[in-house]
């Protein structure tokens, strides 16, 4: 198992670059409140990275996010966007450059789905045809058939569908910075998983800088390049890569927050394509298969489901790449090559 831990620490997640968003000594005390909602927060979000904000309810995640696009003005400290202090720039102009997905969804009830998604492009003066094709593209992206949904109104959508439209609205003008407050919270696990994969795929193509709030630790581990674990009162308890947070919780609070089962969770960080696999021999015929784009977690799942002590890892064309044994998994798993 120690090998897994080791391989996790130096694989998977990208090295941080220069900060796109930097919070420096930021605090927020709401009027008439004794204690700050966010206290002395220093946080640097690297360009092109997905940073997950996670923590118990009421710990200041939304407050932190809203200070980044100045929906809330910080009491102290300063906020830099791409190196520029945004404390005094025009807030409306700033917000058109930053995609924002609000926790309560907040679609405009009097506008059609298409018009909801098109708000920012319209304000930016895009021409009609470009807006229409962008709207359709985004509806496809969030898994909603444009012909069916384009002309509907928010009240004619389910909660999860509304939430997806909210995500599309935030992405509409293709901002390089996105702030997303529990964007997949009301979506069923299967659709959520698909959206997460879609999201990671898009992110691989056009690396946006994303701050993403969630309550779901699996989601955090899956999507995050880094995870910021908040404790009550807006204290940043730990800010590190998912594998570090899981392997070395900074304090008791973090340890308790991530809870038990971290060893299993860490399996989902280990991609099969990075594993040293066993040679395929003929006797492996009939063993269950798993795609090499999956993780060790998926492999374990397949083994358990098929009651098989072994899985065959196949590539995108279905060609076997090697085999993974239960025994190997629990004794000495090795990775190969440099991390992605």
């Amino acid at each position, binding site marked *: 198992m120690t090998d897994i831990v080791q391989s996790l620490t130096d694989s998977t997640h990208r090295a941080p670059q220069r900060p796109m968003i930097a919070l420096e000594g930021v605090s927020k005390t709401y009027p008439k409140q004794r204690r700050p909602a966010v206290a002395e927060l220093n946080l640097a979000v690297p360009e092109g990275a997905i940073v997950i904000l996670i923590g118990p309810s009421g710990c200041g995640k939304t407050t932190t996010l809203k200070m980044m696009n100045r929906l809330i003005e910080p009491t102290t400290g300063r906020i830099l966007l791409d190196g520029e202090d945004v404390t005094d720039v025009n807030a409306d102009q700033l917000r058109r450059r930053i995609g924002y997905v609000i926790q309560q969804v907040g679609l405009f009830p*009097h506008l059609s789905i298409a018009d909801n998604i098109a708000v920012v492009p319209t304000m930016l003066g895009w021409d009609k045809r470009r807006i229409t094709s962008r709207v359709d593209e985004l509806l496809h992206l969030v898994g909603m058939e444009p012909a069916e949904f384009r002309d509907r109104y928010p009240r004619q959508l389910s909660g999860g569908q509304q939430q997806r439209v909210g995500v599309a609205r935030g992405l509409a003008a293709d901002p390089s910075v996105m702030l997303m407050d529990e964007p997949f919270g009301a979506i069923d696990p299967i659709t959520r998983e698909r959206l997460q994969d879609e999201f990671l795929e898009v992110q691989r193509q056009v690396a946006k800088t994303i701050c993403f709030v969630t309550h779901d630790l699996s989601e955090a581990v899956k999507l995050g390049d880094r995870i910021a674990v908040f404790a009550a009162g807006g204290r940043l308890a730990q800010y590190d890569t998912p594998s570090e947070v899981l392997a070395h919780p900074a304090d008791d609070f973090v340890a308790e927050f991530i809870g038990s089962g971290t060893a299993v969770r860490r399996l989902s960080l280990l991609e099969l394509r990075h594993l040293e696999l066993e040679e395929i021999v003929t006797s492996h015929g009939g063993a269950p298969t798993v795609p090499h784009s999956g993780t060790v977690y998926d492999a374990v799942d397949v083994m358990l489901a098929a009651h098989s002590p072994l899985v065959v890892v196949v590539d995108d064309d279905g060609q076997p790449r090697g085999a993974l044994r239960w025994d190997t998994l629990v004794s000495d798993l090795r990775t190969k090559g440099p991390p992605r």
Partner: protein
Amino acid sequence: MGSYVQYLSENSSELIFYAEQHFLLVLYSVTFASVISLALALVLHTNQLAPPSWRRSLRVSSRETSLLLASAALTIPSLALFGLLQPVLGLGVTPSIVALTLYAIYPVLRNTVAGLASVDPAVLEAARGVGMGPVRRMLRVQLPLAWPVIISGIRTAVLILISIAVVAALINGPGFGKPLQDGLARLGAVNSFNEVITGTLGCLVVAAGYEIIFVVVLRFTTPRGIRD
């Protein structure tokens, strides 16, 4: 009954004239009242439109004060108000419109304030989040969403005004108040009862006309997404 029909046909051109006057008197008054109330509510309600130096409590109290004044105006007995305006504005159309405007402000203002306040804060925050400025937010989001409530205030105002407007006849104002008062003053005389009935029914006819107009206006001005 036959004689009433005869009365109607003999005086038809005059009755149409009354109806037209009554309709227009209400229309002008309610229009002025709506413009005043909307402007007032927008200034008082929109945080960023009111001077930022106004503290929140001041904004709230100024809103409550104007509502209070408007409701006070509504409680002045109509007879008294027309009488009170007479020395200042004289007789005829102008004081009638002024008095009716004062009566209409409260229902419109009340509903406008309530309508604007009823808009989901999450929607307004989303509007802020996508970079809409205060004016755009008001015109593109808050006002359209509040519109059904505002227009029902205007509708209430119209119904109130149609009945109060008959009192305008006291100061030589236009409308169905004239035949009504003529008839009441000479009860028992020839045609007096016909005049009273005509004044009453006339108000109902004008009200029916307005109701039809409101159905049409509501249909065409309510955004589809919030129409039920």
